[in-house]
């Protein structure tokens, strides 16, 4: 009853024409900028942040939420159409979404992403409304040791993503973590691996690595493949999902929604972990896991749903604990502070119209996203009919200007070029770059929680197994490693036998 009246309050705020207009404007601008390869939600929100300064606080936060969803969907669009993830959480979408696009099912992939996101958004809105207070209390029970084990579990689970060798995938995660340690250490102010370059003091920006590996490196691989293999698929029949497709979408999207909602609540979890885990789950339970990475529709529906529901539930720790779970949420904290608002437990009580208005506008934002983007699916898919020889110089130029514009530093373009080389070499060595990116993002969080956990336990590592939540995650990690290693050993043996036979 309480929840319903709260939601009612929220909808009255969100449905005010002026707020509705800002939500629409936010979704439109967010999609338009987010669809540009390389410009993910963080870049998009940073660029559009000044636009919201002059608005009323609740209009501003509603518009920012709209920009966030728009940018996230725009990121999925480029992930599907040109294999460029605009943000870390759409890395997974490239795996099957891009393959679907290459098979002429770009429209279907885009519609799947939009519908799964909408479904997830609707359910997640209700999850927030009903469970926010209780779940915030559950997250309060998480200590640093628990976060540490959770993130280690997330990283290991992500190895399922890689096609090839488990050892290589774990190695790529470690390389990513090592890259993530670059920069000035927050606790000791010691510059680590900065090679005397002042700009490396803040570390390398995620977008620089992503655009280098996926924008520049992928272009080189495509060019190396020869003319026939690299043309984007020209016809894009099947814009609308058939009833049969819808049936295929619903269950994975539901699984993704609930997995994403659960992981999004946990600070440090968030959309990245959600989309990776959802993909891993689908691949694990599929009758025919070989289809994944070759255009499986579940491989788009489930991560997109998980991504979106986690994007929403990520607001829970932010608004109830004042704990930003991701760079985007950190930007939201900044935006709130500019309006003189401090995220924290007192926010729901003191500013109910802001909290519940935001919750309601999340659902409205998702609705607008579908209304705006489904008619445009044909338009985005038409991008594929542009010949590759015209498209790839555009991708390279946007990558260059995009990387440069992150912080107006030409060195970033050089670093991105180096990562282009790295990305190309990795594909030649049959190493998947996706685990590297995940390690890069979660690495610093793991270090911070490891440090805190050991500080609290006075240096005793037993804290990771004596705390029940942590112990459960570590046990799950061990199970995943076992599952991963068994077939690898078997496959290795079979390979030897094949060689012997020939």
């Amino acid at each position: 009853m309480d929840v319903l009246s709260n939601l009612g309050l929220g909808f009255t705020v969100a449905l005010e024409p002026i707020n509705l207009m800002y939500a629409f404007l936010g979704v439109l601008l967010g999609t338009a900028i987010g669809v540009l390869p390389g410009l993910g939600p963080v870049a998009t929100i940073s660029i559009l942040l000044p636009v919201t300064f002059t608005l009323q606080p609740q209009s501003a936060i509603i518009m920012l939420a709209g920009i966030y969803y728009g940018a996230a969907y725009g990121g999925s669009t480029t992930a599907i159409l040109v294999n460029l993830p605009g943000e870390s959480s759409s890395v997974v979408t490239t795996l099957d979404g891009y393959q679907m696009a290459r098979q002429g099912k770009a429209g279907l992939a885009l519609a799947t992403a939009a519908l799964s996101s909408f479904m997830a958004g609707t359910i997640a809105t209700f999850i927030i409304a009903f469970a926010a207070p209780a779940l915030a209390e559950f997250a309060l029970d998480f200590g640093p040791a628990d976060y540490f084990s959770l993130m280690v579990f997330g990283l290991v689970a992500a190895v399922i993503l890689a096609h090839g060798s488990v050892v290589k995938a774990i190695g790529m995660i470690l390389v990513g973590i090592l890259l993530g340690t670059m920069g000035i250490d927050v606790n000791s102010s010691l510059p680590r691996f900065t090679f005397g370059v002042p700009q490396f003091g803040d570390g390398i920006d995620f977008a620089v690595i992503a655009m280098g590996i996926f924008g520049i490196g992928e272009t080189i691989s495509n060019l190396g493949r020869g003319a026939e293999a690299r043309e984007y698929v020209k016809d894009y029949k099947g814009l609308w999902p058939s009833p049969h497709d819808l049936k295929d979408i619903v269950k994975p999207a539901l699984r993704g929604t609930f997995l994403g909602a659960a992981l999004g609540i946990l600070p440090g979890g968030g959309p990245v972990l959600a989309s990776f885990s959802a993909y891993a789950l689908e691949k694990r339970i599929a009758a025919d896991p070989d289809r994944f990475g070759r255009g499986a529709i579940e491989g788009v529906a489930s991560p997109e749903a998980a991504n979106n529901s986690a994007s929403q539930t990520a607001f829970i720790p932010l608004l109830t604990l004042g704990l930003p779970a991701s760079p985007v949420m950190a930007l939201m904290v900044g935006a709130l502070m500019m309006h003189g608002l401090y995220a924290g437990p007192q926010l729901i009580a003191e500013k109910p119209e802001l909290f519940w208005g935001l919750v309601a506008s999340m659902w409205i934002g998702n609705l607008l996203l579908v209304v705006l983007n489904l008619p445009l699916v044909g338009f985005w898919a038409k991008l594929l009919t542009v010949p590759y020889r015209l498209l790839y110089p555009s991708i390279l130029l946007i990558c260059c200007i995009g990387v440069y514009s992150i912080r107006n530093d030409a060195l970033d373009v050089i670093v991105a070029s180096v990562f282009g080389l790295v990305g190309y070499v990795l594909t030649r060595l049959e190493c998947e770059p996706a685990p590297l990116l995940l390690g890069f993002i979660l690495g610093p969080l793991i270090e911070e929680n490891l440090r805190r956990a050991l500080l609290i336990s006075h240096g005793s590592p037993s804290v990771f197994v004596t705390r029940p939540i942590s112990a459960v995650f570590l046990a799950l990690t061990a199970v995943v490693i076992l599952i991963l290693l068994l077939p690898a050993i078997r496959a290795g043996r079979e390979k030897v036998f094949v060689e012997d036979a020939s």
Partner: protein
Amino acid sequence: MRIRLSTDFVTGLIFVSLGLFAIAYGWNYPLGTPSRIGPGYYPLLVSSGLVLLGAILIGRSLFVPGNPIEGMALRPLLFVLAGTFLFGLLVEKAGFVISGVLVVVFARLADHDFRPVEVGLLAAVLVTFIGALFWLGLSLPLRPFPQW
């Protein structure tokens, strides 16, 4: 036994070298105490893991035949990277118009299908459009032309 130049072997070599390099470079980073870990603790942990995994890959490649490395596409590699490198070197001094045109021209040189007129038009259209979008549309502080 002859060492095969398989992807496993080379990847292992890279992992070991990178890990050893990070250990050596970060040798003076304080490790701290068990309860107060220093800035060197975590990188050392991760680098050691990398060396271990690299060693496993190398070791395994001696017994299990892996896939050999396919050839590198040198022409796209060199020209694409030359274009983006030049952009990074020039954008601050020469502005995004000149450096943008260079990216497009070098990108097309990476392929065998270089059509001068088409490339000229493409460069003009792309630089105008992307310049307008990022510079005018998003009002990012970019410099279009060289400043003497």
